[in-house]
């Protein structure tokens, strides 16, 4: 059922506008998006609306998706890399109902990917749009609580303070310990919070052919990376940026180049490492890759039998 259909007994006005938001709101968001694309990494304020979703659950991302989605689009929604978590399923269903959206779990088939905390493992291609849900758009916020001051710091590229934070990490722990929401320099100009994606995903943003949009609903900010924009993770010359690595491959699909989640599987301290990108992992299993624990997991019903 689609709920933007007319109400019974009223043959003119639909219950909801297409994609939930009214047209003026979508225009307002699109104007903010255009400005954000024109100035990569700059945080554009916008009039964030109430959504049928708690603030902090992705209202920024969902508003951007609503503003750009059309009947021709195919939507993929992931939460921590997985297509089947509550948040992802709910948002997908929301757009199925309000925007007649076709939805998919396949990264390659999607035209819009709304994401929380991950970038899919499969490389994004030109024409795709990835929409990030952002809780805190201001990378300097923890260092400088005054909004007026952080705006000045961005305006004049006074970014020494961000480096002080990295310095503190190295001084205390011997390396930069920030593992997610790792600050990046956009186009050599603005420092940007990449949303809480693991730093493992930072290199994927660099020169990506896809359009990347960031929405922070509670903080009322939109920012963007146009395709083929340089994204440099901050570091020191003698402490270069490094991504996470694991000592073992995925226990289900044996991938050694993907981001792995650690899963505790019993109360004896046993654990397994599996791909956080569920679609990537399934695709590999279907292609015949078998991880060390796939047999056990299939036997106990944790994963479905591979179709191949």
């Amino acid at each position, binding site marked *: 059922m689609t709920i933007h259909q007319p109400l019974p007994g009223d043959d003119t006005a639909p219950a909801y506008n297409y994609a939930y938001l009214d047209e003026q709101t979508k225009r307002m968001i699109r104007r903010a998006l255009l400005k954000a694309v024109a100035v990569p990494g700059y945080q554009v304020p916008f009039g964030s609306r109430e959504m049928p979703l708690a603030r902090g659950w992705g209202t920024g991302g969902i508003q951007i998706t609503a503003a750009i989605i059309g009947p021709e689009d195919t939507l993929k929604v992931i939460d921590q890399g997985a297509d089947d978590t509550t948040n992802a399923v709910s948002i997908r269903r929301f757009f199925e109902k309000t925007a007649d959206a076709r939805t998919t779990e396949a990264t390659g088939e999607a035209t819009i990917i709304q994401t929380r905390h991950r970038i899919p493992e499969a490389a994004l291609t030109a024409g795709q749009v990835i929409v990030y849900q952002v809780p805190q758009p201001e990378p300097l916020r923890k260092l400088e609580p005054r909004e007026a001051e952080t705006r000045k710091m961005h305006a004049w590229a*006074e970014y020494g303070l961000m*480096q*002080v934070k990295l310095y503190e990490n*190295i001084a*205390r722990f011997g390396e930069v310990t920030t593992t997610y929401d790792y600050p990046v320099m956009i186009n050599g100009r603005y420092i940007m919070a990449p949303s809480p994606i693991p730093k493992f995903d930072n290199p994927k943003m660099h020169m990506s052919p896809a359009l990347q949009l960031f929405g922070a609903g509670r903080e009322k900010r939109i920012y963007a990376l146009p395709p083929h924009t340089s994204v440099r993770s901050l570091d020191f010359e003698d402490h270069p940026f490094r991504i996470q690595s694991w000592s073992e491959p995925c226990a289900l699909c044996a991938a050694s180049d993907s981001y792995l989640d650690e899963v505790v599987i019993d109360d004896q301290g046993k654990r397994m490492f599996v791909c956080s990108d569920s679609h990537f992992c399934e695709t590999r299993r279907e292609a015949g890759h078998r991880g060390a624990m796939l047999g056990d997991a299939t036997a106990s019903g944790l994963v479905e039998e591979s179709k191949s």
Partner: protein
Amino acid sequence: MTLHASFPETALEPAPLLSVVGVSRFYGERIGCADVSFDLWPGEVLGIVGESGSGKSTLLRCLAGIDQPDEGEVLFRGGSAPLDIYSVPEQERRRLMRTAWGIVHQNPRDGLRMDVSAGGNVGERLMDRGDRHYGQIRERALDWLARVEIAGSRIDDRPRQFSGGMQQRLQIARVLVSEPRLVFMDEPTGGLDVSVQARLLDLLRVLVRDLGLAAIIVTHDLAVARLLTDRLMVMKDGHVVEQGLTDQVLDDPHHAYTQLLTSAVLSV
């Protein structure tokens, strides 16, 4: 009054580092400071003395680019041409504040980042100006900690773990690391006990002389003024009532208020 004749070493410098012309700042009806003019030459240390509420700190805030004066101008000669610091964009003024001059606050909490380690505090100005080599930043931080007599082993401690005197010395290191040409100090020894004060003064004297810094020191302590400064300005109710060489002003005060001030000092 011209003073550069009495400073042969600075006579080589063709122009004053800082020229203050008719600076006034009002708080509504009340006067913060009124019609203050003077020149500060490279390498010179100027003291501003006066009782509480006489406008010393107001004047310092105007000179240091923190509060815009209501009248008058502050000309800073960083390069070749003098620059009116309030006519340039705020961006440029902030850049000057971070590089060409420094401010030592009375309360170290105002000048330090209390949740950042000593090394990070000292290194911040280096990173501000674009240094991106951790090892070199750390090396310079260690060097400066040694110069202000803080043990290198304390480099990763936070300022809140330091004593008051150490915090003040750390603040000085943090300011001087970028090798500014001009330093503003607001009561640098305020709130410290006398023996710590004495060591801090000693340190300041060495640093100022070694680095050829120009400095403006606001204090209500005439002993500090006598030790550190070349020239003295006495303020009362927002006006400069007397200025001249420090020894001259302190030993032969002309204005009635200065006479009162010098006679009020306890001699032990």
